[in-house]
């Protein structure tokens, strides 16, 4: 079995016994999708909510609105059915300016994590994929492991208990 690493602005697929991992999500969001019948799993690590304002070359894996459809299409090619897909999501933290250090957090750029989570939730809802588990927002980084054999998303953070969702 292999542990397949998903980079930042990246997405990958895996079948059991292989697993997927993405490291140190901060304000980015990790989206785990699974077809429980064919056991085709996918993990996408997005940085930004929308590609709408981007001109020129576009990395579709960077944006929630382009990465999620791309991941679904690739999973369908491997035998997954869109109607059976279930989602688990993690990330979207506010790493700086969350008030714990007394700085000036007036700029809405600090809240990019929250906007990423909102975008991912809205896109999945529109496509009709239920979010069955999530560990999002707050102010700490997360490493996410996804095992298509069990459908379990494991979230690891510094100085916190490991969560299995």
């Amino acid at each position: 079995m292999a542990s397949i690493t998903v980079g930042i602005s990246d997405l990958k697929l895996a079948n059991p016994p292989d697993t997927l991992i993405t490291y140190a999500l901060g304000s980015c969001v990790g989206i785990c999708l699974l077809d429980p019948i064919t056991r085709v799993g996918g993990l996408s690590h997005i940085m930004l909510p929308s590609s709408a304002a981007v001109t020129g070359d576009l990395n579709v894996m960077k944006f929630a609105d382009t990465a999620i459809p791309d991941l679904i299409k690739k999973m369908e090619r491997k035998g997954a059915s869109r109607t059976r897909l279930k989602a688990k999501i993690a990330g979207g933290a506010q790493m700086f300016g969350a008030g714990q250090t007394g700085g000036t957090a007036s700029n809405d750029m600090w809240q990019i994590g929250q906007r990423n989570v909102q975008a991912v939730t809205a896109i999945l809802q529109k496509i009709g994929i239920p979010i069955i588990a999530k560990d999002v927002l707050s102010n700490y980084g997360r490493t996410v492991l996804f095992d298509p054999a069990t459908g379990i998303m494991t979230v690891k953070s510094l100085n916190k208990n490991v969560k299995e969702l």
Partner: protein
Amino acid sequence: MGIRYEDLNDMHMDVLREIGNIGAGNAATSLSVMLGQPIDIALPKVQLLDFNSVTDAMGGPETLTYGVLLSLTGEIDGMVMFLLNKDFAHLMLNALMGEAFASFDEMDEMALSAIREVGNILSAAYVKSISELTGLDIHMSVPEVSIDMAGALLSMPLIKFGAVGDRVLFIEENFQSVSESVASNMILFAEPTSLSLMLSKLGIS
């Protein structure tokens, strides 16, 4: 129009290195005053790195890292982020607060303020060198501090400037006090138009 980090040539890099050298000199002076002991900084290593190389330089994306982040406004639109490893942070805290500082768990509000102040002083030293060499008016925001995985800390400025290009200007400094040698890393994020303005003010375009 603007210049992305990807477009920089050797001449540009030489100029940016010179800014780094002058900034490091300023930073050493400020730190010596703050800590009440002589601090030397070796010539800093200035490189253009992609995201993965930056996290590798910190010991991997999950490495516990102290991050200090400031916004640059005025004639420049950018951000400065300091990534300090545990050794660096502990040396600073012990020198500043005069007590042994054992672990991350003991990090209290006062220690966070001290880290923020160190970040502020180091950033000011660099921003001053950029400002003086270019004649540009640059304002620094109040620094924000966070302690977490290196990769997670970097996500915020990368998101803001990630749409611009996937490489960053990475300045690695080695500080030498009487008894110890520690490293800090600074990353300068700038919008392409700001980078191009800085370089043209320095006489190259």
